């Protein structure tokens, strides 16, 4: 077995990719595909593939795989510079539960990106993960500042509660950083809605991966653990956009796309459309949503064709292309992606 030539182990498609792709990202993606398959044969192939690609680039064992977290206490100020450093990487829990929730949530988020997508933090270069907690006075928000910081408010108890309580919310904010370093989708209109949707998709996957939930078992709600009574039961629903709370006006398909000047052209509204496409893809396929669906969406986020002004139609086409190249033109994965975009009336081909 150990002398079996590579061509008998790897599909021609995969070999072709291994030969052509020279970027570390693509190599890690290919290796990831192989690693996810638990069969002995493919595990051997993975080892062989590592031997093939190692001389070409920087990938080496033992690099990456652990986050570098710093949590700061803003002590209810609206100062935008980091406040008091209260817990850094490797330090044990502190008394303040919000600090620990942010620290742990970043850890679980890092873990999904590393375990499944072989991504080393926000920039894939081990970038420090910095959370600023207790921002503002009863501040009803969590946000990414575009400069490497995630801010978390305590909520007013009516609309939102402590925003560090939501693992999907922490994953959502960190993913804004990932998106900024990859497709850098412009935060308005359809590209802004895709930016928002990617944060919901990967935020939801962080939670599902941590809870070991299948697509069928997951609730597909966003912000369930941080809403107050006015926004209960959740901020958004990927399963049924527009039904998450009494104010939720998310559309579930292109026929109901909302044209507005508010919220950068409704980025948190129209994200319901790509969110639902991912949900339909994942539930059509069944199993663990972070596997094939997550990998297809992650490949798309890294694809150079996905530029800052990407539309839903282009994004959909790129997901389909990755589903076909990864799993085969007529694979059930490609069919599920097609079903996802069909459900939201976005033409994908």
């Amino acid at each position, binding site marked *: 077995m150990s002398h079996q030539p590579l061509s008998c182990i790897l599909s021609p498609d995969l070999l072709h990719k291994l030969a052509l792709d020279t970027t570390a990202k693509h190599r890690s993606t290919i290796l990831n595909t192989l690693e996810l398959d638990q069969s002995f044969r493919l595990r051997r192939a993975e080892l062989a593939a590592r031997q093939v690609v190692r001389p070409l680039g920087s990938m080496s064992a033992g690099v990456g795989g652990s986050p570098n977290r710093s949590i700061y206490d803003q002590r209810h100020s609206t100062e935008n510079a980091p406040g008091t450093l209260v817990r850094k990487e490797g330090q044990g829990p502190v008394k303040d539960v919000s600090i620990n929730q942010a620290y742990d949530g970043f850890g679980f988020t890092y873990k999904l990106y590393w375990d499944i997508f072989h991504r080393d933090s926000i920039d894939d270069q081990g970038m420090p993960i910095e959370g600023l907690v207790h921002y503002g006075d009863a501040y009803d928000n*969590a946000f990414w500042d575009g400069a490497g910081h995630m801010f978390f408010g305590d909520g007013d108890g009516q609309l939102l509660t402590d925003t560090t309580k939501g693992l999907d919310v922490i994953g959502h904010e960190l993913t804004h950083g990932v998106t900024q370093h990859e497709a850098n989708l412009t935060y308005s209109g359809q590209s802004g809605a895709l*930016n928002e949707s990617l944060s919901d998709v990967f935020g939801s996957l962080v939670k599902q991966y941590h809870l070991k939930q299948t697509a069928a078992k997951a609730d597909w709600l966003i912000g369930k653990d941080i809403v107050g009574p006015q926004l209960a039961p959740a901020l958004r629903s990927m399963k049924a956009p527009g039904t998450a709370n009494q104010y939720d006006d998310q559309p579930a398909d292109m026929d109901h796309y909302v044209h507005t000047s*508010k919220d950068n052209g409704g980025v*948190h509204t129209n994200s319901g459309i790509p969110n639902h496409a991912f949900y339909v893809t994942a539930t059509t396929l069944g199993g663990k949503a972070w596997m094939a669906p997550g990998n297809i969406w992650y490949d798309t986020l890294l694809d150079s064709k996905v530029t800052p002004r990407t539309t839903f139609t282009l994004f959909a086409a790129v997901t389909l292309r990755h589903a076909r190249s990864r799993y085969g033109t007529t694979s059930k994965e490609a069919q599920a992606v097609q079903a996802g975009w069909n459900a939201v009336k976005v033409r994908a081909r």
Partner: protein
Amino acid sequence: MKLVRSGGLGGLEMVATVDAADLPTDQQDVASTLLAQDLRGPGTSRPGGADQFSYQLEIQHDGHTVLRHWDEPEVPETVRPLLTSLTRQAKPSR
């Protein structure tokens, strides 16, 4: 005066309409200053940011109206108490 807060993680628009006379005097002073001049914060919003609030403040006085707009994180510290106090009275607009 009328405050519209938009954006944020929830994307929920919040609106408050308040009579300036009902505000604390220091906040009335800030509102008067804003009638005469635009105040800007030290920060500038960055293009890569996400989920940040935007505020639009409409102030009416002696038959004319001024509009002031800030995106987080560029809200000036002198204006923030006024925005916080108006936000507390705001209701979801949809």
